[in-house]
């Protein structure tokens, strides 16, 4: 089955955040009311009860004075997903159409995935000691519906469909944008990390939107998947029992991430 995904077009998005509310509604996630910190974005990051947010970045622009760049942020459903490799309990799986699914039944709350994910997407929901993240609305998609966020988006900034077709559409749109005032317009998600099952049309380079230009996973991930998990997986609960040990291992891993990039490549 072909990969199915959302194409997000920053040139059409008005940052209304209806997608954020639709996501909460469909997934029955409680509100996480945090004090206003001086940015319309309000949520600095996704959290255990918030699978998606809209990044809002103000960027100086000599011609227009300022740009206000919007980018809907959530799990990227990486085709070669680090979370799948990092999870010692096999809680993460890929659907045949490209969604990365997390099974809370298998999740033991170890949080390794939160460090392994190049986008920092999986979040720990303390009250249940489980990880949560965007599901690409797999329950809706398997029932023949589009994701809740894509269904609600009024200006058509989110479109759900066949990944290959959406890439073609995105190429046309980017050509148009480049010729009409956005010389740096680009597509994000085709090649990053070997391909994301989320596509972005950006009117400027990804860093202007708060997205990593060259997202990276790390050598240790494959080591972890190929060696530690098969042979020492039984150690994990023990390690977690000693939370200090867990803390140190995860930190060490996080540090290592800075040193050994193996994949990347923004187009």
């Amino acid at each position, binding site marked *: 089955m072909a990969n199915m995904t959302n194409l997000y077009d920053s040139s059409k998005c008005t940052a209304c955040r*209806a997608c954020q509310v639709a996501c909460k509604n469909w997934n029955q996630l409680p509100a996480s009311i945090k004090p*206003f910190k001086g940015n*319309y974005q309000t949520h600095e990051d996704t959290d255990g009860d918030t699978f998606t947010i809209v990044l809002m970045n103000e960027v100086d622009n000599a011609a227009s*004075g300022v740009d206000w760049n919007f980018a809907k942020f959530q799990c990227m459903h990486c085709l070669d997903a680090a979370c799948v490799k990092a999870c010692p309990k096999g809680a993460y799986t890929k659907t045949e159409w490209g969604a990365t699914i997390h099974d809370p039944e298998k999740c033991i709350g170890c949080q390794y995935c939160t460090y392994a994910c190049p986008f920092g997407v999986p979040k720990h929901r303390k009250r249940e000691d489980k990880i949560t993240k965007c599901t690409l609305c797999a329950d809706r998609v398997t029932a023949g519906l589009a994701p809740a966020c894509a269904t609600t988006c009024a200006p058509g900034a989110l479109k759900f469909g066949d990944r290959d077709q959406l890439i073609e559409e995105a190429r046309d749109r980017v050509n148009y944008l480049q010729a009409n005032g956005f010389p740096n317009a680009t597509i994000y998600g085709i090649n990053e990390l070997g391909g994301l099952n989320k596509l972005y049309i950006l009117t400027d380079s990804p860093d202007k939107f708060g997205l990593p230009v060259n997202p990276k996973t790390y050598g240790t991930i494959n080591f972890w998947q190929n060696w530690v998990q098969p042979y020492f997986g039984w150690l994990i609960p023990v390690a977690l029992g000693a939370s200090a040990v867990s803390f140190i291992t995860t930190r060490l891993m996080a540090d290592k991430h800075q040193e050994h990039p193996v994949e990347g490549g923004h187009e």
Partner: protein
Amino acid sequence: MTNHMIDLKNTNVALIMGSNMAENHPIGMKWLTKGRLDPKRQTKIIHVDPRFTRTSAVADIYCPMRSGTDIAFLGGMIKYILDNELYHKDYVVNYTNAAFLIRDDFDFQDGLFSGYDAAKRSYDNTSWDYKYDEAGNIMQDPTLQDPRCVFQLMKKHYSRYDIDTVCSITGSPKKKYLEVLKLYCSTGAPDKTGCINYAMGITQHTVGSQNVKSFAVVQLLLGNIGRAGGGINALRGENNVQGATDMALLFQYLPGYIDSPTASDKYKDLISYIRTTTPGAAKLPFTNLAEFRAIAAAGIKYSGWRANTSKWIVSLLKGWYGDAATEANDFAYHYIPKRNDTKNYSHIALFEAMHKGEIDGLFINGSNPVVGGPSANKEQTALTKLKWMVSIDLWLNESAEFWSHTAWERAVDNEKVSRLTPKDINTEVFFLPAAAVYEKEGTAAQTGRWVQFRWKGADPVGESKADLWIYNELAKKIKALYKDSKRPEDEPITKLTWGYDGHDEEEPDILKVANELCGFNVATGRPVEGFAQLKDDGSTVCGNWVYCGATTWKDDKMIYKPQLRKKDDPSGLGLFPNWSWCWPVNRRIVYNRCSVQPDGVTPWPGDSDRLVWWDPTKPADAAKPDVLGTWAGWDVPDFIKTTGPDKPAFKDPFIMRPEGKGCLFGTRASFKDGPFPEHYEPWESPIAPIINKQAMNPATKVWEPDKQGKAEEYPIIATTYRVTEHWQTGALTRNLPWLAELMPNMFVELSEELARDKGIKNGSKVIVSTTRGDIEALACVTKRFKPFKVAGKEVHQIGMLWQFGFKGYATGDIANRLTPHIGDANTMCPEYKAFLCDIRRA
């Protein structure tokens, strides 16, 4: 809107001014997005606003403009159009009053039009009129050369609005301003159209009406009215604001925008009412309805469609008083209340009167003046002077709990602001829980005048009730109290028709209301099929003539057209004639006669989007098949069907106007503050006037002279607005956790430069003060606000949300505690959008 939301997809250029359309009208905005993607239109979007918003973020051009300087901005545009001959010449000559000559005593000096009375702060508008020849015809010069023609007077008036002067007033960067002028004025080409979309950023000023009038001048010059993709589009902030206005929300009207009478000679009886409200009737020889009918049948010169006012008022009275309304008793005209001629009954005036203790009781329906009213400290105090108050709302909002302890907490001790406690307040407060839109059925007239029926989706929660139920019960109870009265002064109540109960008397039948509103024939009880069939002899009933035609009779039952849901769109222009119903008479784009050339047939050169046309081969009336010639088209023609090329009115597309033309010059009583828009500074302004000698709109009423903030003490301009995450006063949305989390606290936006000057950190607490009060809020320091260079000096502007209050999940101080009690000269719409303040760290 002259046009409608879907029509936005047909435009070449959209000018969004005084509106944050993407945030506050996201669904309307989607149609502009469609136009952008359409290779035929390639819609460009211009956003003009004091701050960079989410609308600016998706616009092609964003141009900053200091709050309260719209007329300067648009005056410069008018001059640019005239100087560069960018106007749509054939359109201007034929469809506007550009060629009409104006009286010789009309004049303009130092910012004042002729006829000004400084003591009364008002104008005698006698000189603001056309010149008539001996035969009583308006004199014209189609070459537009006569120095007394509207075109030349306009040219002279706007000659002062050169680009440098304009930019020194508005603070717009000259380069950006020129970009806007160039792009928008390109729609003067006959094959292009541009639309102007505005909201409260235009109307909430002491010059609000003239701001809109400036749009009219620009759009008429560019030939953008009455055409697909054109128009002046008021984006309504509440879905049914249009409907509320249609039903006489404004005090000066009865339903359908006809005059509400005052207690004066002009309106003393029905005949006087007709004489006053029918254009051209003032001096005609009639003393009773029969004589008037004979004169009207022969035709009244320079009267326009309003020549039918007698039919509208009589059908309205017949609806209200039924059998008690007869020709012999003036159709019970004496039953309807008459206003005091010297009084104003707008929001500000009512609260001023309430504050003085002149009002005993108040019903507040789905409204929240403690948050939304101007000078909210004063308005909250005014509520304490009432004997009783009824709040009808979904939630116990701030107004329903104005008496509580929290309601009187203030960020700063200020002896000029009242601080009360519940024990000081004697107002008896009732709360009636109301059903939400999805819990009741009925229509809402949206911004494009489409009256759409909504079916009930769920039962109301708890004891909450639909507004119709509440008012039906109230009226029945009041009538019961008076049922034995024989006193003539009680007749307005005892004789009032009231029969809206459904089968079980428990629930009213909303279709019975619709039936009366849309009109029926007294003899048959069957719908009147359109307002042309209304009569002034008591044989028809119609509660609102603009809604006439929304009902019809088919297969032995009434069809209520707002319930239609057919998706056919044969023109491809998005008119959807069988989806709901639109007033007037399902006409989707008003003044649509302008969509064809004066010959009535040919589209404008290069344009393919004719809406209507003259068809000489078809009969206008199926009953008279041999009388050929009719107006036809994709849309319902905004023209009398039989007005063919042989009639002088054939080139008069603005049928509601006495002279039939679009008014570049607004004659006589059209406006209280002048026939041409002139820039005046807001009541509170950081600069002295530049373009004339008037400090502010000379014709607006100043309610509280002592409350005027001066720039020495309050140097910073403030404005108020909404965000997409909250709805109006937030009573609905701040009670919904998923929306509360998106905008959890009250904040004030300010530039990085001002924050640096004042030592304010992003996210920290600040105090904002005006002469009316103080509030505390969180700072949102942003690149999206920039200081303005105005009159050679740097001026700062801040902005704040007016959607917060002390109830709900998302709370914060009420911005309207800062806003002034002053309004537009014509409408008294409060000047929420430009006032002076100071800001400091908390």
